């Protein structure tokens, strides 16, 4: 069975918080890498069960999706 955090689905709806922080920090002139680290940190706060690598992957997908749309 695939956990929610593995599938990238967001039953706890933290996606808005993750992408909001990323977007705000980038707009404030922070380096993209720092904004990304902050986004991953928020994700891991909501999903402490997620392995660091998996969390980074989910956040990357969410950010990429936000960039495309």
């Amino acid at each position, binding site marked *: 069975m695939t956990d929610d955090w593995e599938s990238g689905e967001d039953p706890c709806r933290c996606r808005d918080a993750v992408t909001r922080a990323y977007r705000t920090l980038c707009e404030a*002139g922070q380096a993209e890498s720092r904004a990304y680290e902050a986004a991953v940190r928020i994700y891991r*706060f909501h999903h402490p069960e997620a392995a660091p690598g998996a969390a980074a992957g989910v956040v990357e997908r969410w950010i990429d999706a936000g960039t495309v749309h």
Partner: protein
Amino acid sequence: MIDLEQRCVDAGLKMTGQRRLILQVLSEAQDHPNVETVFERARNIDSSVSIATVYRTLHLLDEMNLVQRHDFNENYSRFEANLDHHHHLIDLETGRVIEFQDEELEELKERIAARLGYDLVDHRLELYGRKMKKSAS
């Protein structure tokens, strides 16, 4: 409006298209570009900008203390936007980013570095938190 541009307006600097362009280049720079680099980056956005305009604008911004001029061990100066130093508190639940400044914190960082035998050159700090619940009284 970008932060640096707002500060220029507040300082009474008339905003022309080319000045705005130069401010954009400075605001986006992650390094300390010299005049030629600012000129090249600006020209990539608008080919009509002249190096004389870049020189004059950077000089004016320097005079007004709106950019920081670095004279490294070179024959030319490098510039960066002189933005107010601030930190971020990030709300873990909502993703809201709150900018703040704190003089005590600035002094504390300097003191820690000095105690360890260093001059503080740079640092990195973000606060993460969640809103405190109001206690029933």
